[in-house]
């Protein structure tokens, strides 16, 4: 009964993937021109280009920003929900709504919020006295901070995911354990770092790995906000592969870049599984 699903994934993911990797060893003329086997030349060309190494670095930075911020926020909110108990249910519902919104809509919405002259964020910051003029922070047009700014909608969209998962995990932390620690005079931070977080380790691992993979693949949310600019400061690997493939029409080079991108993600995911999850070494 597994066969249809296996066949489906083999035909529509496996086979395209094989073609993609095969293309990475060829020099391919765009628009149906000739192809010639060139071994690893595309790989060395990609590794030698600043565009690729820069994009790989930006993908990493983007992923770390997104995952670190939403983990911190998500955990804080999950603890807040737990502290308030069952009465916080309605807030939990409201908190979940961004998860349903399309990334392209979220990107567009935040671009609108962050625009420097008629954007509402800088206007509100000006009204409360943090900024003097509304063009003081150029969220999306200052290359030094743009990579951080494009991450904001991603954080906004999926912090709820982390919160929900951690909240559910927190419900399974045995109350007697916390009570005992409190009687022994442990402070909240001690309880958090010594008891709660270690117990949540498997849950945290799943949440971080899923979100890490998704953040590393982010495409539309960045495309719609900056299209990789200003000055390439937000061009991550997914955007670079897309541009190399569709705009520059170099499938060979794009395939080499994409293959390394995929291998990199796999490697990080495997390392993450072993580092955080440590299957077998914990109670669950």
């Amino acid at each position, binding site marked *: *009964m*597994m066969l*249809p*699903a*296996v066949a*489906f*994934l083999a035909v*529509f*993911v496996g086979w*395209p*993937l094989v073609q*993609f990797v095969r293309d990475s060893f060829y020099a391919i003329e765009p628009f149906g021109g000739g192809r010639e086997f060139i071994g690893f030349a595309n790989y060395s060309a990609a590794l030698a280009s600043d565009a690729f190494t820069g994009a790989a670095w930006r993908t990493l930075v983007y992923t770390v920003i997104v995952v670190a911020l939403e983990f911190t926020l998500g955990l804080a909110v999950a603890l*807040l929900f*737990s*502290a*308030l*108990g069952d009465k916080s249910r309605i807030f939990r*519902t*409201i908190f*979940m*709504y*961004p998860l*349903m*919104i*399309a990334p*392209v*809509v979220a990107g*567009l*919405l935040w671009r*609108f*919020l962050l625009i420097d*002259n*008629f954007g509402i964020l800088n*206007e509100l910051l*000006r009204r409360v006295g943090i900024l003097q003029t509304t063009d003081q922070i150029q969220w999306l047009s200052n290359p030094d901070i743009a990579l951080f700014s494009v991450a904001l909608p991603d954080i906004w969209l999926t*912090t709820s*995911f982390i919160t*929900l998962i951690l909240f559910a*995990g927190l*419900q399974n*932390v*045995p*109350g*007697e354990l*916390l*009570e005992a620690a409190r009687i022994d005079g442990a402070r909240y931070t001690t309880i958090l770092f010594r008891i709660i977080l270690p117990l949540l380790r498997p*849950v945290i691992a*799943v*949440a971080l790995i899923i979100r890490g*993979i998704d953040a590393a*693949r982010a*495409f*539309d949310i960045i495309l719609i906000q900056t299209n990789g600019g200003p000055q390439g400061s937000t061009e991550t690997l997914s955007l670079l592969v*897309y541009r190399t493939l*569709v705009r520059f029409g170099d499938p060979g080079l794009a395939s080499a870049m*994409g293959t390394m*991108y*995929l291998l990199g993600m*796999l490697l990080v*995911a495997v390392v993450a599984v072993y580092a955080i999850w440590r299957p077998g070494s914990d109670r669950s």
Partner: protein
Amino acid sequence: MNGLVVRGKTARTILWVLLAAVTLLYGFPFVYLLLTSFKTPLETIAVPATVFGSEFTLENYASALGREGVVASFINSTVTAVLSTVISLVLAVPAAYAITRYRTPGGQVFILVALVCRMVPAIVVGVPLVSLFRDLGIADTSIALAIAHTTLSLPLSIWLMTSFFDAVPDELDEAAKIDGCSRLGALRRVVLPVVSGGVAVTAIFAFLASWNEFLFSLLLTAVRAQTTPIVIANFQTQFGLDWGSMTALAALYSIPVVLLTLVLQRHIVAGLTLGAVKG
């Protein structure tokens, strides 16, 4: 409930205020989107920006819906998402059932492989899929796009359904078999009705994955099968920055799924947390 609940009265008041503030901040972007969509086109880009418009108008909605291809894109998005949900369920339900009932090593390997499939960026399989669908004669159709979207939702669907089937004791199938059902008969008549809630959750996630997807839609559709996210993205290049109509269209596209969240809240939470928390 557990020992994490704070009981002190002052502490609770402070926490409630904190929660209200967080919710307000978190809710603001979408509320602002809605408020902006009812402003006049000029007021949407007025300096200084205001939170509340001075007059209420449906002008932006009228001009957004009046644009060529917008209504058709809504139909395409719906058809694609429904098709993709159906394909995803038809494939995931028997696969997950087999994985939980036969417990072969192959099943465990398959779950792992499916999760790796989820890691593959759309850009990697997207271009080979373009030529594959052209060869199959279904280029630029909703069915082709639905198939592509299913590659994204299928791993999660299998994962979710596996967790739901795991919760159903094997004895139920055994009893059905003694009563003369085949394996498939037991699945259809006895087990599926028990996990109908789980099927609903899986369907919601498959639907959302397709409804919100962008890159496959960009690569695999030209005109006929174009979905709304692409139309939204095209608004800025084709017509300059028409923020008024764009906020209206974005609101129209998001409101159904946001309402869906509120209505099906409990099911969605169950689906999101199930696999992860079991560890």
